[in-house]
């Protein structure tokens, strides 16, 4: 399918890449179809976690129901060793459960004009079951911040390389 998007212009999305969010995203119950976009569209288009050289990758979740809606996503599981979100199994039934090797976990990032205010939501990550191609925003049981500021952390990471 083709869709005209605000951030990426007109893009072609293979039907097999469509991810359904049966309950939408919190606050957007009507936006149910999304696609993961890499910053570089190549290969099979899998939005992989982080680059092997330690660079941090941001990928995008583009709504296919509304071209103006997209989210920047980061994989905080890969960045924060202590990040261990806990979820009730039954919360995941609508997406076909959690199979570690078939699941992606992403955190929605806010990238404001002042980049130092950049932050990710650790309290409500997105879980995507790549087998059923379904996803859900889950409010985890842990007492994690909704606004976790990461500018300094990213600076440190960049300094490591």
């Amino acid at each position: 399918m083709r869709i005209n998007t605000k951030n990426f212009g007109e893009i072609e999305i293979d039907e097999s890449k469509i991810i359904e969010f049966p309950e939408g995203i919190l606050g957007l119950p009507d936006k149910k179809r999304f696609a993961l976009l890499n910053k570089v569209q190549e290969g099979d288009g899998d939005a992989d976690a982080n680059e092997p050289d330690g660079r941090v990758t941001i990928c995008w979740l583009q709504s296919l129901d509304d071209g103006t809606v997209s989210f920047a996503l980061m994989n905080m599981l890969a960045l924060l060793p202590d990040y261990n979100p806990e979820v009730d199994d039954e919360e995941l039934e609508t997406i076909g459960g959690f199979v570690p090797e078939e699941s992606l976990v992403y955190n929605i990032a806010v990238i404001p004009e002042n980049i130092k205010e950049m932050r990710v939501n650790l309290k409500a990550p997105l879980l995507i079951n790549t087998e059923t191609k379904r996803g859900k925003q889950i409010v985890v049981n842990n007492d994690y911040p909704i606004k976790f500021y990461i500018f300094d952390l990213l600076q440190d990471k960049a300094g490591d390389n």
Partner: protein
Amino acid sequence: MLALTRKKGESIMIGDNVEVVVISTQGDQVKLGILAPKNVSVHRKEVYEQIIQENAEAMQNVSASVDGIRK
């Protein structure tokens, strides 16, 4: 708003499927138990509203930053 007075251990039904039980009270704190079907999400209101607000802000990611990161 409907106001119901309940005692410890008593509950109310919301529709056919959702039961809210008063587990205990202590001062101005009330501990509630919620029995709901799996497809009904239960959140503390303030957490839920903050997440919705943060999602709304995430959709406003400024184009300049988006371009800078995308390329």
